[in-house]
Every structure is written in structure tokens, then in C-alpha cells.
């Protein structure tokens, strides 16, 4: 018996399956019959009722788009608003010969270029035949009049008023605000399509994207009764949309405009923050671009031109630019050196204009070929002595440096509410082994000492690390927005405002570094010329980042180097020295020396902001 059980009984199993199949077939037939019966009930028994309902089904539900929240600066200046724009719309189904109509309209309105026609045809392909497709957006009064008198000739063509985003400050704020554009297929897959049924635009980059959910609001709807042809007879029921929340920024638009003015015709970044809380006061990445064409749909030609520009206007340098921080990081490195006991306030070195790992080996040159002579920490910061920091960095070692600088936020996100930030790179042994499969060489530590080599940082990181010095060793996450709300009622945003201390240090060491930075601007330091005659106290540090490699005994000659390979000019500063209110970082690409080209811009920003504050109070 036991043995027989282990042999499968095929005939019995086959029969079992057959009988089960039969039962299942009967069940399926029964269930299909239920479906048919139900459909029959609807279509045959209830036909008259539903027929009447269908004929009377003139009640249409029209989704109503919510108004997008506005964006204000700290003084309630409006930075992103909603305007009604008039656009030319076509319902394909109602137009007999669309090419002919397009040609006619083009003759009436010469503004409409072949590009517009091409883009329109592109959109036509992916839209429904009975839905309006935009041909041209942004008709002015004359255009409207021109079209309106001819409108009767073209059934299916109409002028529609729509609420559309408008950025009054155009390109000066685009890298901070971002912009909205038409929803594309990819975005459609990730949003709540019910809530976006009436919405045409969505935040594409910047704050508009980061705060999309809050800015958008909630859809409303209207039940309307129409006649047989679909014309509206009356509104039966209305549920108002919930408008999006207005966004309030820490940005001071006046400072933002000033920074943008200073950067005109330059490439680079100005970022200013309040060191006491990490609030971003101004954020300019130059060059910018006008976001407004993106809202109504930028033409392919215009977009390609932006893409092809060697100045890369679409690139957000403030968030994504990875620059060698150069000498702007000497204060933080100096603090680390003091704290680790590598150097002390009284340590002196004799600078002969270069540093060598060993006699006869490669010379790491100081920016001053003849050297600085006797140098201490304070004068090394004041005069931006490279040799002092080469030696100190080598003695600190890469492990100490990368760990210490990480606490200043290097190699990490600043937490700014923008979403496109990159962490840049604070290199260490592990990173090099992993990416280049090579050990770390001491020579690489040497140039890390002047913020070059593998080390890269975003302007946001540079300004925030400087703010940590200004703020006696505390670092805040950066934030652009501070509140949201409707009708002027502001609810504070729950953003991470916790400050983090950098590594442990003795107060007198911090004092020494801060004094060094003050002497840069005020006591015959590297930026003394730029800050001459300033009516405020300040501290700063210049930086000049080499892009071209210079041979051992060659002089760097600004004239000879191709423009795009010239040094980047950097400057960081804060003011007033005693009670800092503003920290600024200026990075001007390919302009040359930091103290000569970036420091004057930083001074103007500090001066402008402190004057504004005096005036406001």
C-alpha cells in the first residue's frame, strides 16, 4: 500500500482534472451569462430610461484650474505672478483644411512664424481632435483686433483668455525661481492626473518645481447644463478650486537685482546669505535667460540657441557649478591646523616663494614669486600666502582635512530648497582608490591646502562655509523660502533650521582666523585696495583658481592664456565684522585674480545691503 501511494495515478488525475474543468466551464458560462444579463438589463430593459438620461445628459462637469500661488520676496515684492494672456486656439475637428487656415492666419498675423506652425503641428499630433490646441500665446490688443475681425471666416479658431505665469524680473531671477512650462508625458505619469485635469503648466526647475505641490492648489469643478450642441445654458453647481499657496522668500529683490547688475556680461555666481540663520538673500547665476518664453512654449530655434551658447545660460552655476574653491578655504583650513596642533598662533615659516616635498623635486609655487618672508597664520591669511598652507596641509594630512572640511559642509548638500543641488567633491583616500584605483599621493594634499586639485565646491557650499566662520562656528541649512499662505496670512515653513557646529575648536583660534580675514579687507591685506574707504567693517578672503596648467618655470601671463582658460576670480566676505548680517560669495569665471576682480563686486554687495538695512530701519 505504502509503495503504491508514491506512484502517481495518471488516469485518476486526468479524470479529476476533466471533471473539474467541466465544473469550471459551467461556472464561467454562468458568469458570462451574468454579465450579459446585466448588460441586457441596462441596454434592453432600461433602454428608455438611459436613452432619456443620455439625451438629457447635458450636464457636463467642467474642471476648474486652481490659481497658482504667487511668489513674493521678503519685502512682499511680487516675483512670480499670474497674468491673463490671450491665445489663439484651434479645435482641429472643426477646421476643414487646416493648412489653408494656418496660411491665412499667418498672413493676417505676421508674428506667427513657421516655427510656431511647426510646433503647433507637433502638438496637434498628440492631442484629441475636439480639444483646443494653442497656436500662439501672448496676443496683444492689436493682434486680437486683427484676428477678431477675421474670426468669422475660420470656424474652429478662437481667442481664449488664460491665466498664465509671468516673471516680471525675467532673467535676473530665473536661476532662483525656476519657471513653469507645459506638462509633458513624463510628468503626466508622476502627477495626480485628477488634480491636474484643468492645469496646463507645472514647475520645471527651481522653486517652482520644488514647491510644486503647495503652489499648485486643488482642482475645482463646475456642473453646467448645455444644450444639444454643447453650448452652456447655466451653471448648476460649483465647487471652487482651492488656490495654491503663495510663497514668501528670504530673497531681497533689490539685492538680487544689484547682484545681477554686477554680473551682467560676466559668467559666474553671486550668493549672499544671512549667516545668522542660513537665509538666502540673493542668488544669481550669470548669464541667465528669460523664463517667460518657456511658459508659453519656447520655439525650437530659440531653445537651441540657448543650448548652444558657450556661456551656458541654462546651467545653474550656483547649485551645480563645481569650482575649485581656491584660497577662499584657507580660513577653514587654518582653523583646522590650529585645532589639530599642527601650527599655533606664533608658528612662523620662512617663505622663499615655493614649497618642495624634497630638495630638488617639484616646486609648488606661491602666487608671489619672490616669497613672503616670515609668515604667521594671521599674515598667511591676510596676504594669502600659499607656501604656509602647502606645508600645513601636508602636515595635517588628507584624512584630517577631508574630515574637518566635511563639517564645514564641503562635499555635501547645503539642504537648500531647490532640489537640483550637487554635492561637488571633498576628496579622500577612499574616493581616489574607488575612482582612479590609485593611492593618495602627498603632493595631492599639498595643493588641497590652497583649495585646488581634486577639491571642488559649489558656490553655495563656499558661501555657507564662510558663514560658519562669520557665525563663530555654526552652520545652517540654506533656505530660500520661509513661509507660505493665502491672502497674506503666512504660515512658517517647517524647514530644517537646526544649526550644526563644525568640529570642536578653541574660541581664541576662531578669533585669530576672523582677525586674519578682517586684515584681508582692512589692514593692508590682499583686498585692501578693493575695500579702501568703506564705511563699514568687514572680513574677507580672496581666491584665484587656476584653470590652465603652467609649466614649472613659466610665468602665468593673463594676456597669453586663452580667455576660457584664464583664472576664476573668487571672493568671500561678511560684514559688519563685529555682528555679521550678510555673507557673500562671488565667483567670476575667467576674470583673473580674486582680490582684483571679485573683491570689488563683493564690497558693492555688502555696501548695498548694509545701506538698504539702514534705510529700512
Amino acid at each position, binding site marked *: 500500500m505504502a509503495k503504491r501511494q508514491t506512484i502517481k*495515478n495518471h488516469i485518476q488525475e486526468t479524470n479529476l482534472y476533466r471533471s473539474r474543468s467541466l465544473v469550471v466551464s459551467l461556472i464561467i458560462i454562468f458568469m458570462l451569462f451574468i454579465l450579459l444579463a446585466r*448588460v441586457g438589463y*441596462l*441596454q434592453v430593459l432600461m433602454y428608455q430610461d438611459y436613452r432619456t438620461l443620455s439625451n438629457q445628459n447635458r450636464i457636463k462637469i467642467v474642471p476648474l484650474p486652481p490659481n497658482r500661488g504667487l511668489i513674493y520676496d521678503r519685502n512682499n515684492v511680487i516675483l512670480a505672478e499670474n497674468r491673463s494672456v490671450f491665445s489663439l486656439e484651434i479645435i482641429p475637428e472643426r477646421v476643414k483644411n487646416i493648412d489653408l487656415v494656418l496660411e491665412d492666419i499667418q498672413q493676417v498675423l505676421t508674428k506667427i512664424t513657421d516655427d510656431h506652425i511647426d510646433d503647433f503641428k507637433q502638438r496637434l499630433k498628440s492631442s484629441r481632435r475636439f480639444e483646443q490646441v494653442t497656436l500662439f500665446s501672448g496676443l496683444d490688443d492689436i493682434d486680437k483686433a486683427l484676428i477678431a475681425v477675421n474670426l468669422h471666416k475660420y470656424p474652429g479658431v478662437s481667442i481664449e483668455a488664460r491665466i498664465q505665469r509671468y516673471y516680471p524680473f525675467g532673467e535676473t531671477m530665473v536661476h532662483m525661481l525656476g519657471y513653469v512650462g507645459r506638462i509633458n508625458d513624463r510628468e503626466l505619469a508622476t502627477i495626480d492626473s*485628477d488634480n491636474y485635469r484643468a492645469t496646463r503648466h507645472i514647475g520645471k526647475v527651481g522653486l517652482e518645481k520644488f514647491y510644486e505641490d503647495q503652489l499648485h492648489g486643488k482642482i475645482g469643478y463646475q456642473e453646467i447644463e448645455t444644450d444639444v450642441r454643447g453650448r452652456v445654458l447655466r451653471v448648476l453647481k460649483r465647487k471652487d478650486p482651492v488656490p495654491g499657496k503663495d510663497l514668501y522668500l528670504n530673497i531681497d529683490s533689490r539685492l538680487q537685482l544689484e547682484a545681477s547688475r554686477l554680473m551682467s556680461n560676466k559668467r559666474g555666481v553671486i550668493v549672499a546669505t544671512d549667516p545668522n540663520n542660513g537665509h538666502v538673500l540673493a542668488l544669481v547665476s550669470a548669464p541667465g535667460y528669460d523664463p517667460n518664453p518657456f511658459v508659453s512654449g519656447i520655439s525650437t530655434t530659440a531653445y537651441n540657441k540657448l543650448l548652444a551658447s558657450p556661456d551656458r545660460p541654462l546651467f545653474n552655476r550656483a547649485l551645480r557649478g563645481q569650482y575649485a574653491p581656491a584660497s577662499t578655504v584657507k580660513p577653514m583650513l587654518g582653523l583646522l591646523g590650529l585645532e589639530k596642533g599642527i601650527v599655533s598662533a606664533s608658528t612662523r615659516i620662512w617663505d622663499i616663494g615655493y614649497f618642495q616635498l624634497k630638495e630638488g623635486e617639484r616646486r609648488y609655487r606661491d602666487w608671489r614669486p619672490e616669497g613672503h618672508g616670515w609668515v604667521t597664520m594671521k599674515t598667511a591669511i591676510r596676504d594669502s600666502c600659499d607656501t604656509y598652507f602647502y606645508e600645513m596641509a601636508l602636515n595635517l594630512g588628507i584624512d584630517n582635512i577631508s574630515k574637518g572640511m566635511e563639517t564645514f559642509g564641503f562635499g555635501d548638500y547645503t539642504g537648500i530648497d531647490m532640489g537640483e543641488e550637487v554635492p561637488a567633491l571633498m576628496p579622500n583616500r577612499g574616493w581616489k582608490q574607488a575612482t582612479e584605483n590609485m593611492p593618495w599621493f602627498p603632493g595631492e594634499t599639498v595643493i588641497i591646502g590652497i583649495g585646488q586639485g581634486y577639491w571642488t565646491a559649489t558656490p553655495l557650499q563656499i558661501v555657507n562655509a564662510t558663514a560658519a566662520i562669520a557665525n563663530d562656528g555654526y552652520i545652517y541649512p540654506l533656505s530660500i523660502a520661509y513661509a507660505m499662505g493665502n491672502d497674506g496670512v503666512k504660515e512658517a515653513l517647517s524647514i530644517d533650521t537646526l544649526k550644526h557646529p563644525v568640529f570642536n575648536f578653541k574660541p581664541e583660534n576662531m578669533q585669530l582666523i576672523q582677525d586674519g580675514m578682517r586684515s584681508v579687507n582692512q589692514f593692508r591685506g590682499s583686498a585692501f585696495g578693493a575695500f579702501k574707504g568703506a564705511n563699514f567693517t568687514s572680513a574677507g578672503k580672496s581666491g584665484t583658481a587656476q584653470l590652465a596648467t603652467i609649466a614649472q618655470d613659466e610665468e602665468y601671463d593673463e594676456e597669453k592664456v586663452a580667455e576660457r582658460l584664464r583664472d576664476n576670480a573668487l571672493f568671500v566676505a561678511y560684514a559688519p565684522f563685529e555682528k555679521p548680517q550678510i555673507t557673500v560669495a562671488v565667483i567670476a569665471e575667467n576674470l583673473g585674480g580674486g582680490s582684483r576682480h571679485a573683491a570689488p563686486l563683493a564690497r558693492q554687495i555688502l555696501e548695498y545691503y548694509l545701506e538698504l538695512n539702514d534705510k529700512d530701519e
Partner: protein
Amino acid sequence: MNNPQQTYTHKARHSIMWRLHLDTPLIIGLLVLLGYGLIVLYSAGSENFALVERQIIRLGLAFGVMIFMAQIPPRILAAWALPLYVISVLLLVGVMFFGVTGKGAQRWLDLGLFRFQPSELVKLALPMMLAWYLNERHLPPTNKDLFIIALLIIVPTYLIFKQPDLGTSLLIAASGVFVLILAGISWKIVTWLAIAGASFAPIAWNFLLRDYQRDRINIFLNPELDPLGKGYHIIQSKIAIGSGGYYGKGWLNGTQSQLEFLPERHTDFIFSVLGEELGFFGVFILLLMYGFIIGRGLFIGVQAQDTFGRLLAGAITLTFFVYLFVNIGMVIGLLPVVGLPLPLFSYGGTAMVTMMASMGMLMSIHTHRRLHST
């Protein structure tokens, strides 16, 4: 030896279709159904030919997948069953942690080039796994086997349910239960399962369902609760179908469909367009086509020579049936809205490919039978 059945089979075995491992009746049934679907889709998509074009391209791809699957002999399918099942469960776990969120649910894995929905793979892997497991054992299954099978069903069902994708998880659970029924599990246990399921419902309602899923069921019971969303869908869908009458309002002439009263009419609610424009007659034709495909599938199951083939064929066919039953049931207001497309009819890609892959497996089971007669 001379009975007509044998001669028919012999003739069939030499035909080109047979050598390609394709089942002629099933192919014809599928082609007719798909053609019918395209005609309705053209109307449902507001005469947008680009939409139909994209669907045709997908169909081409799906047909390719079906033909490919048909070439794979059942013994290889059986050998794949365990690894495929393990991989698809791992992928489901992967979705939980690394999945891409779309429309509020985490269902996709982003593979760079394309997005992949592991729950689709489970639709194939689970029936294969159960068929393979039971093939090695006595039928009807013992209590120990039943316990293991229950685990095999519950794990992927739960993972998909958590994504959350209620429709697909129910479908997958149902396909598992069908395999058990076909395997000869006693009716007593089936009754107990049904009772357990019914008493489980309130627990699920209170602890497992998410708010929006609860809303959907509330709306099903009382459509007026949500006049803009799903409730509106059901009301409008019933009006569309009901006003179709015997012969419908005519192709492209459905007022409900064309005037935009019907939402998602080219995907989940395509049946309403059919009902409105082609009427009871059109619906009857569609059910006939479905009935034919299901009948052929069950026939293939009965003809199969081993337990694996039998159970797999049965499971595929029954899953197909549940799929269409749930979709039509929801559109005509018999079942709550769960968001499943009408199989081989609705616009959309992934589910179509999976469905055709399973049709390919059916053909493989049928055309790889050995020549001996018993």
C-alpha cells in the same frame, strides 16, 4: 486508429502553423478579438489615428513575444518556474525599496532604458510555479501541500497589494485559487476558503485597505459621493451603455463617449464605448469572442498530457477570464472600480504583452504534445 479525431490531429501536425508551434484556432480567435478592439479604440480615442498606430506597434511586439513563448517546450517552462518565481518575488521586494512612484503607487523599477513592472512578471510566474509544484505531487493535494501553496500565493499577492495595486493583487490571488480548484482540492475546503475570505473582508477593510481604496468601495455602493471622480465614471458609464440599446448609436456616434462624458474611455472604460456605439449586439459578439478563447484554453488544458501542462493551461485561461470579468463588471456597475484594463482590448502596453506571452504558453502546451496515443 481510424477515428476522425486522430486524422485531424495528424493533418494538423504537418501544417506550417503546427511546426511554428502555433495553435490555429487560438490565433484566429485572438486576431479577430484584437481587430475588433482596434476598431473600437479608433472611436474611443476620438479618431486619433496616432493612438491606433501606437497600439498596432504594441500588438506587433506582443505577437512577437507570443510566438517566442510558443517555441519554448513545457518542460523548459517547468524548469524555469522556480527561478522565475524567486526572481519576480525579489523584484517585488526591490520595487518596495527602489521603485519609481507613479500616480501615487510604487509599481515600477526604473531600468534606465525603460520602466518595468514586476507585478506583470508575477502574473506568469505564479501559475507556472504552482503548476510545477503540484506536478511533482499527488493530486488532490495534501494539507501540507496546501499550506505551502497558500504561502506561494500570499507572498506576491501581499507585496503587490502593498504597492498599492489592489486590482492586480486580487487577480493574482484568484489565479492561484483557480489552480487549486483545478488540481482537485475538495469542495469542502473551497467552501471554507470562501467563508474565510468573507470573514476576512471586514479585517481587510479596517486594517489593510488604504483610504483611497476604501473610498472606491464606498463610491461603488453610493456613486453620488464623488461626482467628479470614480463615482462619476460609473454613472456616466452606465448611461453610455444603457443608451446603446440593441444595436447602439453607431460607430463613432456615441454621444456619451464623443462628448467627453466618459473618462478613461480608451483604457479601462473602453467597454462602455463599445456598449454605447455597438449596443447589446456588439457586447454579445465580444463575449462570444472571449468565450471562444476561454473555451479553446480549457480544451488545451484537457488535452494536455501532464499535470504541469493541464494546470498551467487552466490557470492562464481562468486568469484571462477573471481579468475580463472584473473589468466588465466594474464598467457595468457590478463590481467596484479597481483599475484593470479589458484584456486584449484596452489601450496600453505592459498588460497586453504579458497576456500574449501567456497565450504563447498555451500554444506551447498544445503543440509540444508527444505523439503517442494512449
